[in-house]
């Protein structure tokens, strides 16, 4: 209407964040809160025989030490992994499944006292032999069954084997990806406040407050309405804060035990052990193509690690089902159960690890067929989703290739590896296709027009740094023609209308549609009561004699959407620079183009894209959680040993936001931008490394030793 959608407004919450007044979970004022510290298991597999807590308990200020021996049995049912419920380790038995599993919780009046007392807890255990390396145990792989929210674990169309026999170019390669730890800079934090025995408020660093509410209600046998979860600001999530882990339940348990509020913040090393990770994968890709490089067969078989007590399957093969036109395609996912904590969704799950394999293989095919990598992708362009057999709601990938290639100067690229140099450095150019699913889930919102003209819009969603506060305010301002400053968007409280978790790049679409719906409904209610076409809404409310007029709207997927395959697309071009003597890979530049439907705010959207690219740089070049196979302990367990990219690892990144109108995906045409930045970039980097050095690295991360 008045065009607030699409404008690069400054982030609404930025002022609070730059002044330090934005209160993150552990900063919410709770008088007399005690501090809880989790004691982790030193062994990966076996039983706890006993826990010596006397020394801890004698420390001044220690209020309680909970162990499997004295922790209350929770009244609620244990979670069922078959229903997608996460299995938590909350002192209910003596079994140990992974290193650092919570085996005791120390609660004291100050953090310093709790921390030291935790160090005094001694454990007697019976350890069983450990199996913690995917490679060594791949013989034990089992079919993954299904991919949870991502549907079936395998797919097949046509006949790959026969088609391979006819192919001119055949390629079969194995690609390996490493453990990536989410490592938001804000550690997981929970503060639990009981109001009597039956009501609980949880302040939690979470991407999904309703999820936390439901899990706690279930475990403590409470009415969901008696559990309130609040999260106004989140210091990064990336998947690990997607649903509650053990510490959230433990915090509530601890608060009940000591009859006072309890604050529990994980330590950085615990962030590597207790809250999931992107699992190791071994991916086998087979490609068959005709002489021109047109695919005739494709298979993508993924084996990923998982814990023994729960399920998570890294869905690496999904994009391979539809990204390219190919009559014969199979994909499969298998898992190997190890003595490790459960992996989980990590920014761009599946697509990040999966496009590394697929798009590296496509680059290898380009060289096998001697076709320019962009041209190869054009020859294999899919105009409809051949897996779901549906048209795409919109697919603007050709413009992405064209615009990014042009901007990058791709046409000047010599095909031969090792042919570009600058100063003493080897220069390489690589590219990859980019795709990510556009998801949506039911969400509700309430819009309230107050008598002073303030528009309050509420939805129980989260802002995890993605700009939810800002873009929802824009959508609301636009719908009711009010200045952005008069809109107050409230989120992060289960007392508000229910919204889905902030993950899967679906918040903008899901909540956006709900907000737009609530505002449209409110407008429909207010507009007829206007005395003049431009009469301020405040006047209408004032006349009504009520303090406010409100409307609530619950959005669901439109039936229209089901007729289409909904994905965002893009193209990523990378230049690497490598000193041949000391070959630490540097990123020279990245040009990436994305088409993701309606962009509510190009400024915050650009930030999402570059964030994804930075993650891609980390995954491709720097980051790895190394597990010692003997103990199953993560050895690189802090931010000194685990190398998140630093400022100097990241050049200026150029992002092209390609116009796309998607009339089918949802009412607003929004597809979501939080994760697509991670798709393709890792392969584009590896392909650029090949172009620079002639070395094809099929195992991430591409550290200096691999290029010596």
């Amino acid at each position, binding site marked *: 209407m008045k065009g607030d959608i699409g404008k690069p407004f400054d982030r609404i919450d930025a002022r609070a964040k730059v002044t330090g007044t934005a209160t993150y979970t552990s900063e919410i004022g709770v008088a007399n809160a005690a501090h809880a510290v989790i004691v982790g298991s030193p062994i990966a597999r076996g039983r706890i025989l006993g826990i010596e807590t006397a020394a801890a308990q004698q420390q001044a200020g220690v209020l309680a030490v909970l162990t499997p021996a004295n922790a209350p049995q929770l009244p609620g049912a244990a979670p069922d992994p078959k229903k997608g419920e996460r299995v938590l380790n909350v002192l209910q038995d003596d079994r140990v499944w992974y290193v650092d599993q919570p085996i005791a919780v120390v609660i004291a009046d100050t953090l310093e006292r709790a921390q*030291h007392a935790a160090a005094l807890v001694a454990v007697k255990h019976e350890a069983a032999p450990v199996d913690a390396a995917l490679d060594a145990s791949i013989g034990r792989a089992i079919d993954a069954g299904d991919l949870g929210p991502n549907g079936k674990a395998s797919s097949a169309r046509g006949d790959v084997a026969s088609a391979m026999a006819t192919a001119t170019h055949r390629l079969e390669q194995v690609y390996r990806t490493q453990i990536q730890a989410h490592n938001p800079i804000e550690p997981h934090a929970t503060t639990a406040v009981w109001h009597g025995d039956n009501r609980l408020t949880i302040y939690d660093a979470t991407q999904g407050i309703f999820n936390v509410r439901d899990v706690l209600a279930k475990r403590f046998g409470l009415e969901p309405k008696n559990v309130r979860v609040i999260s106004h600001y989140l210091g990064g999530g990336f998947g690990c804060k997607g649903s509650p882990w053990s510490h959230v339940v433990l915090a509530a348990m601890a608060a009940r035990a000591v009859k006072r509020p309890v604050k529990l913040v994980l330590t950085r090393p615990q962030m590597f052990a207790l809250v999931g990770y992107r699992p190791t994968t071994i991916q086998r890709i087979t490609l068959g193509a005709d002489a021109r490089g047109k695919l005739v067969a494709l298979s993508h078989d993924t084996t990923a690690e998982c814990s023994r007590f729960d399920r998570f399957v890294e869905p690496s093969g999904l994009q391979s089902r539809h990204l390219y036109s190919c009559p014969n395609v199979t994909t499969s996912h298998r898992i190997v159960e190890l003595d490790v904590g459960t992996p989980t969704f990590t920014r761009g799950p599946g697509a990040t690890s999966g496009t590394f394999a697929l798009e590296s293989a496509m680059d290898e095919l380009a060289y096998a067929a001697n076709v320019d990598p962009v041209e190869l992708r054009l020859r294999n362009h899919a105009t409809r989703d051949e897996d779901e057999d549906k048209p795409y709601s919109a697919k603007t990938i050709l413009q992405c290739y064209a615009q990014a290639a042009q901007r990058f100067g791709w046409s000047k690229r010599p095909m031969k590896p090792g042919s570009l140099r600058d100063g003493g450095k080897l220069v390489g150019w690589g590219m990859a296709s980019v795709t990510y699913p556009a998801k949506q889930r039911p969400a509700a919102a309430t819009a309230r027009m107050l008598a002073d003209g303030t528009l309050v819009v509420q939805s129980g969603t989260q802002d995890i740094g993605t700009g939810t506060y800002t873009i929802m305010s824009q959508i609301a301002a636009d719908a009711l023609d009010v200045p952005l400053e008069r809109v107050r968007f409230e989120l992060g409280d289960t007392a508000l209308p229910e919204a889905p978790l902030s993950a899967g790049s679906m918040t903008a679409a899901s909540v956006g549609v709900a907000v737009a719906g609530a505002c449209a409904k409110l407008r429909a209610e207010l507009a007829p009561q206007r005395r003049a076409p431009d009469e301020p809404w405040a006047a209408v409310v004032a006349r009504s004699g009520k303090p406010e007029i409100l409307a609530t709207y619950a959005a669901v997927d439109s039936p229209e959407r089901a007729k289409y395959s909904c994905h965002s697309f893009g193209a990523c071009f990378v230049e690497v620079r490598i000193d041949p003597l*000391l070959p630490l890979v540097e990123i020279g530049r990245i040009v990436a183009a994305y088409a993701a439907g309606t962009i509510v705010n190009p400024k915050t959207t650009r930030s999402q894209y570059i964030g994804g690219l930075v993650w891609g740089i980390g995954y491709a070049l720097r980051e790895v959680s190394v597990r*010692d196979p003997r103990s199953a302990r993560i050895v690189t*367990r*802090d931010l000194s040993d685990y190398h998140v990219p630093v400022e100097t690892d990241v050049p200026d990144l150029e992002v092209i936001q390609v116009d796309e109108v998607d009339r089918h995906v949802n009412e607003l045409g929004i597809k979501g931008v939080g994760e697509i930045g991670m798709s393709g970039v890792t392969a584009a980097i590896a392909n650029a490394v090949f172009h620079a050095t002639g070395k094809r690295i099929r195992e991430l991360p591409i550290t*200096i030793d691999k290029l010596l």
Partner: protein
Amino acid sequence: MQPFTYVRARTVDEAVAAAGSDTRFVAGGTTLVDLMRLEVMTPRTIVDISGLPLDAIEEGPTGLRVGALARNSAVARDPRVRARYPVLAQALESGASPQLRNMATVGGNLLQRTRCSYFRDGVSACNKRAPGTGCAAFDGYHRMHAVLGGSEHCIAAHPSDMAVALLALDAIVHVRGPLATRTVPIADLFLLPKDTPHVEHTIGANELIVHVDLPATPFAAHSRYVKVRDRSEFAFALASAAVAFELRSGRVGEARIALGGVGTRPWRAREAEAVLAGQPPSPELVKKASAAALEGARPRKDNAFKVELARRTVARAFEELLVAQDAKDGGGAR
């Protein structure tokens, strides 16, 4: 953190008097506070020496004298250090982060402790943290560990960049004990792990480092530090090299080569220095010298690459020095 008594020293004498076996000095705190929080170090008393007047950088009897409490950033920034001991400024600049360099002191940097993650995790077998428990790194994950100077009891790498540069500069460390002041040549400061990896250096528990002298050697000004790590900044060395030499009528005169990231202590490569002495610099000579520098390396599965990497690091430092020399001489040196 284990409870402790906090004592703030007002004078050097007070600090030394307060010292003892269960006592630690705290200067910048960037090693000590970290390891105390991990309960890897558990002193009963800590003596805060940060207020002592030991932070001067001034002309000493043999060259520049750097106070033990001079901050890493201040030393790196000092124009005299930059001109006369460039390797030291470069080593300091390449270490840690700007904030940490503002906190870290010369004395603390020398006595910082290994970053071996089995040492830091508080539970794994580690002869350095808990003598007699074994070395989890030996057959474990040891990508960051030493290829030189290790024993079956410990292969933890010494993490300091600064100490590597000081080794190449023949620095002299001055320490104050309860009775006397003594000097320790930097080469005698650090110990090999052998079968007592928990004993890391020759400074007594009741000795305070007061300053470090940087002798005015003929090679100090012609020196370079090259550090290779897993990301472009803010990481410990996989390999580093401090190289210094004097060029006398087209030949290498006295030379120093010290390595970081690859040794259980800051590593002086005397064999390599000997290869260079008296020779005209050439790519082949550099190759021979850098090969000699890694003579005797005992790599293990995850750190085997460091042998080659360290050779190349030495070569790069040389190369850069020669290029710098070329530029200075208008191309006459080679």
